[in-house]
């Protein structure tokens, strides 16, 4: 058999590899429309590089014979019973093989539209892609959809294989026609493929060995094209980004180090570096790089998991982005994004989702849908009011709390996110633009104030131990007639009676004293002063209950920004149709007895505090 010569071609040799610790691994995903031959291509690659275990090929052939099916190379991959029954790939399988150059993980992604989320899962792990197009069927819906998703997933090296060339009698014109059509589509979405290769996976032409009947084609085989892929340059020269994953203290085990853990996504980090945490704006210096059973590194580079200690005992937590102060990410609550949707239920305005970007997780809603595209066509835009499954959209998102992020075009790994609907990841996207929100001033003021804040020896943790609860703000909204003041008073009484440290901060009291020197219509300053008073009470460890009617229905986000990272819990009293009701954590009818309202609030509050 012809493929036996593959080793001589400098492609495959499993046995003698002495420097395996220096070998590289390349993740390649195989995508394309259903039935265009992805699994067959991968099966063929395995068979032709002699990667299969002894007897595997024969075993699958035997199974086919017994069940009266014609053997296909795809069966080597589609190991799951159901897949063999239906002859389709349901999930992305991973297979391993190696050439003289390096190790490969080949991800065989399903082409069926039903399993698009599996295709995305497979492709998101890849550094390069082979996209198959059936020479006879030509460019199909998922050829385009997959091409578009690859570009959104940030995969820059794409090899297009025009498969089943045997079915069009190895005709060069048929090949050229597909190249032209697909090239035009790809350039429309800004993708430049590495090359197009005519192949027959079934016959083994241009897979591991050149196709004898493709004499008009002079380029590489699939295997040679794979070996020609380049590893992405590391992002060491880019700005430092380390999303904080967790903070550890293993006191019980007699270890008093306070470890900030995370992975370096870009840039480098070393001992002594001044570091800034965003969105909180806290600063410190790296005291040490910690390791277990390894020499302490001089510096950490992209891809490395880090364990660091800081010179100051800062309270930082998961979701912050650690950077150098001279190269900061964006911080905002408004993001312009491109998004693809995989959820069974459509993505709708008004509904709350969770946005996960690097290690941060915040509540998010749609601010505006700018454009919805059908990913398979991409020419047509529509003014849909919601984003359906498998749609691609351009939209503006608004997060409940500020997030630190980058633009995907500048820093990929901190410029992309997923959306969680209920319990499941339902979409993913990339950040195209950071939009200014009106909270920037408050955020900067808070950062300056926190940097200089003088602290005593009593830590928040010590206060929590004393009070039995975290400091938090419970903010009421609703029109002045709604009866929220009665509920707020009842809530304060109930909390204190149960042994909590709660205080009803009435806006009027702040106006009477602290605001005595300013005009009643200086809303900005009234809100700012109110927020600062609340912040001091929260620093003292209290549960602060408030109704802000007396200074107008000021945007609660302003105050939430001032008091962060203390949480704000929103209670709306009155009609549920209100815009404020949409944003509230709990909604109660103003007509119910205060006692009943208090019970509802406490149940929801306890739940949110986890």
């Amino acid at each position, binding site marked *: 058999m012809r493929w036996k010569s593959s080793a001589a071609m400098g492609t495959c040799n499993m046995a003698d590899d002495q420097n395996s610790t220096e070998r590289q691994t390349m993740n390649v995903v195989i995508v394309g429309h259903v039935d265009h031959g992805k699994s067959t291509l991968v099966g063929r690659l395995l068979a032709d590089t002699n990667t299969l275990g002894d007897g595997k090929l024969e075993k699958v052939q035997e199974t086919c014979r017994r069940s009266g099916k014609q053997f296909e190379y795809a069966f080597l991959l589609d190991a799951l019973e159901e897949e063999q029954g239906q002859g389709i790939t349901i999930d992305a399988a991973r297979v391993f093989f190696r050439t003289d150059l390096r190790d490969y993980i080949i991800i065989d992604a399903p082409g069926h539209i039903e399993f698009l989320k599996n295709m995305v899962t497979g492709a998101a792990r890849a550094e390069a892609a082979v996209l198959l197009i059936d020479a006879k069927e030509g460019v199909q819906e998922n050829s385009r959809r997959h091409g578009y998703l690859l570009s959104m997933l940030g995969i820059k090296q794409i090899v297009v294989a025009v498969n089943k060339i045997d079915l069009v009698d190895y005709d060069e014109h048929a090949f050229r026609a597909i190249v032209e059509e697909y090239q035009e589509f790809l350039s429309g979405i800004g993708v430049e493929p590495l090359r197009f290769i005519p192949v027959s996976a079934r016959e083994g032409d241009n897979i591991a060995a050149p196709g004898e009947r493709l004499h008009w084609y002079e380029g590489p085989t699939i295997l040679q094209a794979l070996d020609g892929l380049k590893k992405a340059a590391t992002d060491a020269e880019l700005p430092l980004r380390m999303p904080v994953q967790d903070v*550890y203290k293993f006191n019980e085990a007699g270890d008093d180090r306070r470890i900030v853990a995370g992975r370096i996504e870009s840039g480098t980090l070393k001992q002594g570096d001044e570091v800034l945490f965003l969105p909180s704006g806290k600063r410190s210096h790296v005291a040490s790089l910690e390791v277990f059973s390894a020499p302490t590194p001089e510096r950490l580079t992209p891809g*490395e998991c880090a364990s660091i200690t800081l010179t100051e005992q800062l309270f930082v937590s998961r979701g912050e982005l650690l950077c150098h102060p001279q190269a900061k990410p964006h911080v905002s609550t408004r993001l312009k994004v491109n998004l693809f949707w995989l959820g069974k239920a459509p993505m709708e305005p008004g509904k709350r989702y969770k946005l996960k970007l690097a290690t941060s997780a915040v509540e998010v809603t749609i601010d505006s849908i700018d454009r919805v595209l059908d990913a398979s066509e991409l020419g047509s835009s529509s003014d849909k009011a919601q984003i359906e499954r498998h749609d691609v959209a351009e939209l503006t998102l608004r997060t409940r709390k500020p997030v630190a992020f980058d633009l995907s075009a500048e820093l990929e790994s901190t410029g992309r996110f997923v959306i969680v609907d209920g319990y499941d*990841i339902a979409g993913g996207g990339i950040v195209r633009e950071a939009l200014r929100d009106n909270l920037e001033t408050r955020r900067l003021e808070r950062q300056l104030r926190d940097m200089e804040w003088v602290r005593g020896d009593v830590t928040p943790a010590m206060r929590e131990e004393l009070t039995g609860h975290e400091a938090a703000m419970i903010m009421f909204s609703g029109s002045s007639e709604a009866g929220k003041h009665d509920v707020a008073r009842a809530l304060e009484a109930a909390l204190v009676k149960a042994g909590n440290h709660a205080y009803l901060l009435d806006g009027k009291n702040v106006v009477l004293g602290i605001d005595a020197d300013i005009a009643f219509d200086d809303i900005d300053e009234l809100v700012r002063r109110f927020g600062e008073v609340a912040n001091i009470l929260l620093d003292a460890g209290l549960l602060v209950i408030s109704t802000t009617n007396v200074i107008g229905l000021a945007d609660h986000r302003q105050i939430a920004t001032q008091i962060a990272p203390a949480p704000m819990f929103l209670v709306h009293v009155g009609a549920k149709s209100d815009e404020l009701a949409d944003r509230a954590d709990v909604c109660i009818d103003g007509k119910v007895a205060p006692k009943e309202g208090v019970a509802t609030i406490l149940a929801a509050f306890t739940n949110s505090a986890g």
Partner: protein
Amino acid sequence: MNHLDDLESQSVYILREAYKHFKEVCMLWSIGKDSTVMLWLTRKAFLGHVPFPLVHIDTSYKVPAMIEYRDRLAREWKLKMVVGQNRDALAAGMGPEKGRLTCCSALKTEGLKHTLDGTWPRRAMNRDGVYEDVLDGEPYTGVIVGARADEEGSRAKERYFSPRDHNNDWDVADQPPEMWNQFKTDFAPNTHVRIHPLLDWTETNIWEYIDREQIPIIDLYFDKGTGKRYRSIGCETCTGMIESKARSPQEIIVELGKTTVPERAGRAQDQEDTYAMEKLRRDGYM
């Protein structure tokens, strides 16, 4: 970073995600090479500490040296060791002679299920290194498992974070998407998530890493002069040794470079049926 550094980093990241997101999290430790590497990676992730319990399902048919090794390491590394067992099935005489898949189902799958959900007593090692029965344990909602994608077909389809329903069932056709290191960490009540930090490792990678890190692996994997060794370990009754003179990780790596025999060829239960492993795994087998 070389390929072992990449693999280590991804596993450490996953372990830290698991610890962060699941209050009741445990790691399955089969005493074999893969889960022992995973245990070592845990110590890397948490700077020498192992902050969650390690669960071992003892079928009572394990090679005796495995139990001895397990308890020695547990004391040395201060592990929170938890052992589960299907005592009723054993009392009723369950063993491989009743059928290998029947036996695996009862002693491993059932034993695991009830140890994880806390409905059966767990034996936990106390501070003095002695086992005591613990009743009414909380169900584990995050279970860290050392499955590798290259072991056999159905494992290649796993996610890093893979949900299981209240029956421990795996819905292969409807798995959540997973991208950019964003995992499934939100889950409905009465379900749990299996976490697979070793998914991307191959058998060779495991031995390369054992060699590089000098991990004290159980010596059943090495030839001690008989010309035989275990390539995969499990129950003494159903696991065969292979002809091999490999005495060290390096010698095993060289040998793996030359073989085309699958790793689990010595595991009798896999050979019962073409889809045996998928069937076992759908029902909760590791």
